[in-house]
């Protein structure tokens, strides 16, 4: 194992732990794309964490999908050493966090391991929805905040306007904001100085019983289960027997290390330090995020507060196109959940799609990311159903149940009421688009809570049903505001709604994968829209296809796709036979991507496309 480590991770042993007052722990938080990871690059580089040769852009975004999309999905921790102007050498623990709302739980975990935050604001864009969401989280975590105005190299940078916005909208003093360009490296030194001079040093007692927060855990192909910890009191050492307070599990520590950013073994981690441990933990689920780690023979008095569990709010069915891939899909989901405990999955059968899984995600981007990783990393061809939210049903007999899948909706006569989740959404938009944003929110059954202006930007706070948001809200918001609005939300509460299930029938066969729960007032429009869309998406076939949308037994929309009458190779002689054979084989291959409904085949993408009704 050590050999493996040495070749793959260049393991170097460092010596003893650091004095508390020479440690600074901070998270980097910001709205999406404001430059957190790029700023982290510069900080790593300035502190000599990586040589120029080892450096790449957003070096911490190491998953393929992160690099490709240019976003951070997983928070990353790096330990740096910085020789300050006062001559002292400091240990800085930096945590780069994702900006997207779906990965907010990563932010909250990182915050709980630090005393301060760098709030990065793009000096050309200003305060956005996740700037607000993240800064409030940081304040809740009692963080000292350093405001960093990034992208000062851009001609469109307007530091003064953005400063006053920070003061008006967030209520933070901005006169001491550090102006930097993470791209050119301008001002980075000032950020580092500011970190050591204004952020508080961590506190803790090295002699007290061990008390450490389990911040995160994941599976590493070379190192096994990795557990990220923040030590509060006491000392973590190799060979120590530790106890996980919540699960009661006892493990022997096999390795203690830090990320520099490469994993590097150290003798021990003392109070205020952030690092990783490897223990003989088989699965990630044995290392419960938010748990308190203590020493088995000297247990600490109280447990740390831990984290609010992350609950999946968006669900969809994932089905292998080739039914034989079902076991492979199960294995892939199990493997992915080792690194991402925030999504759920359970087996599901669909009349239309066969065997698959109903999966729960933290949001639409999270869903997209998992889906993409399944196809990319595991080479699986999948069909996914439209995203749905969790409904709470109250039955006529008074019992209650959760419904993750519209296909599971019981007989209407047995349902007393259906409740749906509402969110509190914050939208920031240039005021010229305010009208369109308000119209969109009203169309989506929104209720206005607040509307304020800061300069030429408006901030609207709305309550919205989540099911309206998972439909195509982002796309619509984006197109209505030319991409200039930003959006953030929190789950608010459950409210009873007049909801109905719209079923889609192809030649009278219900396509369970296309059924949807919608508000009664929108049912006809949505049913019509799906039928019309399907008519465009399903290629004409040799048989006539009748498309219907229905609520219960009542048809609310219908379309017909007329039959094709001719499909035959005109010329087929001696030499053509082989070519024709190839065509036939291709046709067989293509069949895998089709789902058969009675006599007609529907291409899989018709399902997804039908539900993406971007423009009206």
């Amino acid at each position: 194992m050590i050999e493996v480590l040495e070749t793959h991770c260049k393991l170097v042993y460092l010596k003893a732990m650091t004095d508390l007052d020479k440690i600074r722990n901070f998270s980097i938080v910001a709205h999406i794309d404001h430059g957190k990871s790029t700023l982290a690059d510069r900080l790593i580089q300035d502190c000599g964490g990586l040589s120029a040769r080892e450096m790449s852009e957003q070096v911490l975004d190491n998953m393929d999908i992160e690099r490709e999309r240019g976003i951070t999905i997983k928070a990353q921790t790096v330990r740096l050493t910085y020789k300050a102007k006062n001559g002292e050498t400091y240990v800085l623990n930096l945590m780069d966090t994702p900006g997207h709302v779906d990965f907010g739980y990563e932010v909250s975990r990182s915050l709980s391991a630090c005393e301060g935050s760098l709030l990065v604001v793009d000096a050309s864009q200003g305060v956005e929805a996740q700037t607000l969401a993240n800064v409030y989280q940081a304040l809740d975590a009692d963080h000292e905040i350093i405001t960093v105005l990034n992208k000062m190299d851009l001609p469109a940078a307007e530091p003064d306007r953005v400063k006053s916005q920070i003061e008006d909208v967030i209520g933070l003093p901005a006169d001491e904001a550090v102006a930097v360009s993470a791209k050119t490296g301008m001002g980075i030194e000032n950020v580092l100085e500011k970190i050591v001079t204004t952020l508080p040093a961590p506190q803790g007692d090295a002699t007290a019983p061990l008390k450490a927060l389990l911040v995160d855990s994941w599976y590493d192909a070379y190192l096994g289960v990795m557990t990220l910890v923040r030590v509060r009191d006491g000392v973590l050492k190799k060979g120590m027997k530790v106890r996980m307070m919540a699960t009661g599990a006892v493990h022997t520590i096999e390795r203690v290390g830090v990320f520099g950013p490469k994993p590097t073994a150290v003798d021990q981690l003392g109070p205020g330090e952030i690092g990783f441990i490897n223990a003989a933990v088989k699965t990630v689920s044995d290392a419960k995020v938010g748990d308190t780690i203590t020493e088995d023979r000297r247990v600490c008095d109280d447990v740390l507060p831990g984290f609010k569990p992350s609950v999946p709010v968006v669900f969809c069915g994932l089905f292998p196109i080739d039914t034989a891939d079902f076991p492979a899909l199960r294995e892939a989901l199990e493997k992915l959940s080792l690194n991402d405990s925030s999504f759920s999955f359970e087996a599901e059968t669909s009349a239309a799609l066969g065997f698959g899984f109903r999966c729960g995600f933290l949001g639409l981007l999270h869903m997209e990311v998992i889906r993409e990783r399944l196809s990319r990393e595991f080479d699986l061809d999948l069909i996914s159903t439209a995203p749905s939210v969790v409904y709470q049903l109250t039955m006529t007999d008074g019992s209650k149940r959760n419904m993750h899948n519209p296909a599971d909706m019981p007989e209407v006569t047995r349902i007393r009421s259906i409740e749906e989740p509402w969110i509190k959404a914050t939208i920031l938009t240039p005021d010229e688009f305010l009208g369109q944003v308000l119209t969109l929110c009203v169309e989506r059954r929104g209720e206005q809570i607040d509307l304020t202006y800061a300069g030429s930007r408006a901030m609207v706070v709305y309550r919205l049903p989540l099911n309206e948001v998972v439909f195509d809200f982002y796309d619509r918001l984006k197109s209505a505001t030319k991409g200039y609005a930003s959006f953030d939300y929190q789950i608010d509460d459950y409210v009873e709604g007049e909801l109905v299930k719209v079923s889609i029938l192809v030649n009278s066969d219900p396509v369970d994968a296309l059924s949807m729960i919608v508000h009664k007032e929108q049912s006809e429009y949505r049913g019509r829209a799906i039928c019309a869309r399907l008519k465009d998406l399903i290629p004409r076939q040799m048989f006539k296809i009748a498309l219907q949308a229905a609520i219960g037994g009542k048809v609310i929309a219908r379309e017909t796709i007329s039959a094709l009458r001719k499909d035959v190779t005109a010329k087929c002689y001696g030499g053509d036979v082989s070519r024709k054979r190839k065509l036939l084989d291709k046709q067989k291959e293509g069949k895998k991507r089709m789902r058969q409904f009675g006599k007609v085949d529907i291409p899989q993408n018709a399902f997804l496309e039908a539900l993406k009704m971007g423009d009206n």
Partner: protein
Amino acid sequence: MPASRLESACAPNAAAVPLSLYIHWPFCVSKCPYCDFNSHIAGELDEAAWLRSMCAELEHMARIAAETLSTDKLRLETIFFGGGTPSLMPPKIVSALIDKAATLFSFANNIEITAEANPNSAEMKQMESFHSAGINRLSLGIQSLHNEGLAFLGRAHSVDEACNALEQALTLFDRVSADLIYGLPEQTAAEWQQQLTQIIGFGIQHLSAYQLTIEPGTIFHSRTRAGAILTAEPDHVADLYELTEDIAAAAGLPAYEVSNYAAANNQARHNLTYWQSGNWIAVGPGAHGRITYPHQQKRRHFRLRRSPGGWLNDVASNGHAIEEDRIEAACDMYEEYWMMGLRLVKGMPLTPPFFAPDIALPGSVFCLDAEWQARFCKEGWLIEEGGCLKASLQGRMRLDYMLGKLLG
């Protein structure tokens, strides 16, 4: 054909195994924008080399046929000179090949020897020598009887040339066939009807009417991908197809295959060999051959090198240009049996002629999907009759779709 030559061949023998021979001439005057055949614009040709090589390969093929069929009693039923443009062939080569074949095989009494011809005046001048060489059937690539149609199809001949060629062919050869292409953009039913009536009026015994197909790798294909619409609307094409069938039948040329119409006793026997999974050997660049091993439920399939230059080289060094020579498993053989056989109006026996009951095969190998077969019979697209399965007109129109289901 001169009677003396027939006699010089081995005497026809009842026990001889029937065989067909395809000869490919891969050169044309120009390349038509819709054509994906193995055709090239000829430069200077080394006639002697082509003559030598084609004869050499023919000799090799005779050996292959004898070896695969375990007999040297082989009787040629048909020979077909296809292309490219075989009417451009030096008559010397045509005649040498027929002579060579006569030394290698016995000839059926009523042997059918067809050549494809482009109706250009220059090429038609050669037809007399083709006839003396032994060609007894001519297939003329007329394509359209309208100059606009010919221009759209990028053809090198005019309507006048086509008509002259037809008349000339009909005086020279006993059997003449014409090819037409339909389904051109904006083509009306009336216009197509007029062409059909006119061409049948010449007195031809056989007609091939092909729906214009956009084949990958052609100029029409790239133009289509760039957004051009080069074919008629699918529903309209289906109408034209039904119309063709009516008009040809009324004129005494009923359909006998998806795109082929013939008077009694005038079906193309060479092509029937393909559709009925018969045995044929091949000579010339890119040609394919198929021979069924007797009583073994397997078939030999070979393919010759496609590029003319490569073909010449291979034959020079090996005596043949076989690039692929493989044995098809029973399931592929049966798949092809239906793929080709259902194109015929009379269909094919549900039990294929080469079915060997003594060789155990899983039932599914030669069975069609029973559920779909029943469904298509109910729809009236397939008809089971007297131990045969055939497709109706409506079925033939949808044959590719049905094959996908039946063989899936």
